[in-house]
């Protein structure tokens, strides 16, 4: 039987050893991640932006899908932790020559890697690697298919906490393509775990998963209605291929119905936060005036991304190392007796 997200991501002592999904982590762990990230924000403001927590450790960035922002913030986070960083261009590497994912990772482990940061198009890829391929290397999920993008969700939580102070009593709306979004799945989980009052999804039926209510949300079909009284609005990026696969008629109609404009934003609670995981499509899901407006915290999200990634990388590495030490102590004990 495959491992549950909870048992997979923790050491038996309850430390974080992989960061695969929000699923399986409790409120205390999420809060610890946010607190740790808070302490790293200060590092980014120094002239010398480095701490030695990962000195001598090798972090491999394995991006099987293209990414600019996530990959560069992971790289910066690892470097600020003083790790040696290897960025693998998967387009020219072994998997395009037919090597399996397992074999690629086992080879990288043989090079004494301590951490893999993985983005992959298949849901469950990071889970599979942590469960079945290299459980002794700390795995950080940088996005797997439609399943999870937990560092993005946590940097969003950090941004929300910075502005609101707490999660209790908040109403948060997520607008757009929920069905294909790993970001939304992780956000929903994180928001509910951290105890917000209500998570709302606003989308047409074609962009919603099967029985979305089971995810712990209220579903709205109309943007104006769903935005009423919310404290945070998270807009999702709309991919152009949604029109080609008959999920939506046109960008124009989508913008008209679900695009966030100044006028629609007025329905929310006063000074509601406007968030977007980026990259934004101006005039498709969000009006420029809103994206650049006073309520937008979109660029703050990017800055927080580095701190959150430093937090989960240092925590997972420390849990993984502690587990390895206990393991070798147990082995020594075994040989002695």
């Amino acid at each position, binding site marked *: 039987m495959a491992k549950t997200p909870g048992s997979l991501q923790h050491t038996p002592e309850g430390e974080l050893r992989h960061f695969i999904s929000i699923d399986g982590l409790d409120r205390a762990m999420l809060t610890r991640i946010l607190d740790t990230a808070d302490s790293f924000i200060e590092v980014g403001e120094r002239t010398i932006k480095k701490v030695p927590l990962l000195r001598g450790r090798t972090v491999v960035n394995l991006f099987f899908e293209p990414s600019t922002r996530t990959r560069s913030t992971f790289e910066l986070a690892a470097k600020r932790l003083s790790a040696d960083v290897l960025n693998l261009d998967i387009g020219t590497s072994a998997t395009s020559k037919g090597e399996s994912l397992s074999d690629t990772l086992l080879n990288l482990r043989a090079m004494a890697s301590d951490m893999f940061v993985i983005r992959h198009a298949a849901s*469950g890829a990071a889970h599979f690697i942590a469960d079945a391929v290299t459980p002794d290397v700390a795995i950080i999920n940088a996005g797997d298919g439609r399943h999870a993008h937990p560092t993005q969700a946590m940097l969003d939580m950090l941004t929300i906490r910075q502005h609101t102070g707490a999660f209790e009593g908040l109403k948060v709306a997520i607008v757009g393509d929920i069905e294909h979004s790993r970001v939304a799945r992780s956000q929903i989980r994180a928001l509910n775990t951290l105890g917000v009052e209500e998570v709302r999804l606003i989308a047409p039926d074609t962009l919603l998963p099967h029985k979305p209510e089971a995810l712990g949300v209220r579903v709205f079909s109309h943007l104006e209605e769903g935005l009423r009284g919310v404290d945070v609005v998270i807009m999702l990026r709309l991919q152009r291929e949604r029109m080609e696969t008959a999920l939506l008629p046109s960008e124009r109609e989508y913008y008209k119905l679900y695009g966030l404009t100044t006028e629609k934003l007025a329905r929310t609670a006063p000074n509601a936060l406007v968030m977007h995981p980026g990259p934004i499509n101006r005039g498709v899901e969000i009006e420029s005036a809103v994206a650049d407006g006073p309520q937008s915290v979109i660029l703050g999200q990017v800055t927080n991304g580095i701190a959150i990634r430093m937090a989960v990388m240092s925590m997972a590495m420390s849990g993984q190392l502690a587990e390895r030490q206990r393991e070798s102590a147990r082995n020594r004990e075994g040989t002695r007796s």
Partner: protein
Amino acid sequence: MSLCIDNIRLVRDGKPDATTSSVVVEDGRFVAVGDSVDRCEQHVDGQGQWLLPGLIDLNCHLREPGAERRGRIATETRAAAHGGFTTVCAAPDTSPVNDSGAVTNLIRDLAESQGVVRVLPVGAMTRGLGGEQLSDMAGLLSAGCVALGSGGRPTANSRVLRRCMAYAHTFGLTLFVQPENASLSAGGCAHDGVLAARLGLPGIPEVSETTAVSELLLLAEETGARLHIGPLSCARSLQLLESARQGGLRVTAEVAIHHLVHTDARIDGYDSTYHCRPPLRSEEDRQALLAGVESGLVDAITSQHRPQDGAAKQAPFPETEPGLSTVESVFSLGLGLVQSGDLSLGRLLEALGRGPAEVLGQAVPAIEPGNPADFFLVKPDESWWVAPETLLSAGKHAPVLYDNLPGVVSCTYVGGHCAYSDQKGNA
């Protein structure tokens, strides 16, 4: 050579006999059933075990030719015998596809020389299973195919499907079709339910099956083709089947054993063992499938045995191969359903004997003088440990693994010859 097996219990009308009896086998057939016969050359003590007619599997992927690293006729027929099967239909999705008499002959030759149970090839209904051109149906029939089928692949083109049926009807051929609307299942790998939504797995909606079932039923009605559909996975498919039957349509159906014992809850944690097609569905679906078998709406339980090697299952879930190694545990899993009160013993045995025989248009297997001596002995009250080392199949992804299952098959005979015996490992 005559063989007398004494001290066995026959199962009649779903009930094991209270008293033991004997069967006598001579020249590959039963010659007497009832009292022991002293003049036999060989006597075997059945130790009170059940003696049952050999099981028939309509949906078995033996993997040879083409995917020998996942299974061979030699290994998979031994696995079948270990599971109490004496006849298996070999699915056409081999490589090359069984769309010509030459491939059919190759399969028959391999089965003759290396197999231990009866292997009935099912031919491909379209060339290369490509869903575009008709295969040489009459040629396949004369080479020994018992039916033609889709090999578990969806047939995208309704026009081709209609013509397959019309052409097959000309020759009185039976078509085995797995209902799947390819445009609705495209990209999917799991039941489109709450769990897939949480795991972010692209879903295969029920309508990808039910719209295909409707289409197949309507086309069968129009063309008059003899149609067998399955494995069915949804409750709604059975409702469609029932109303077509009530309207007088001659159509038969199967469910696979794993859909009777498991639901999509099994894929939590991305367990790729349970990646199968159609996908494991909800508990309501499972209950409806059980009710369908019990009522006789579903004619056959099949294994949908599809052995995989380790590499095929070692990848992120959506990239793994669908399929389980089931043929060895079908009977035991079925017996478990009988013991838990989900299924009657009578219907279990019919769905693995009479039902599939009627789909094939063959004589109903029975322990009666004159019939071929295809049977197996089973200890219903004992259990066996299912683990890679106890499975004879080359595939080790069984629906239940590292656990005990009820019903130990101690030996299987095909045409009076021992195909499996726990005394000598395998024959």
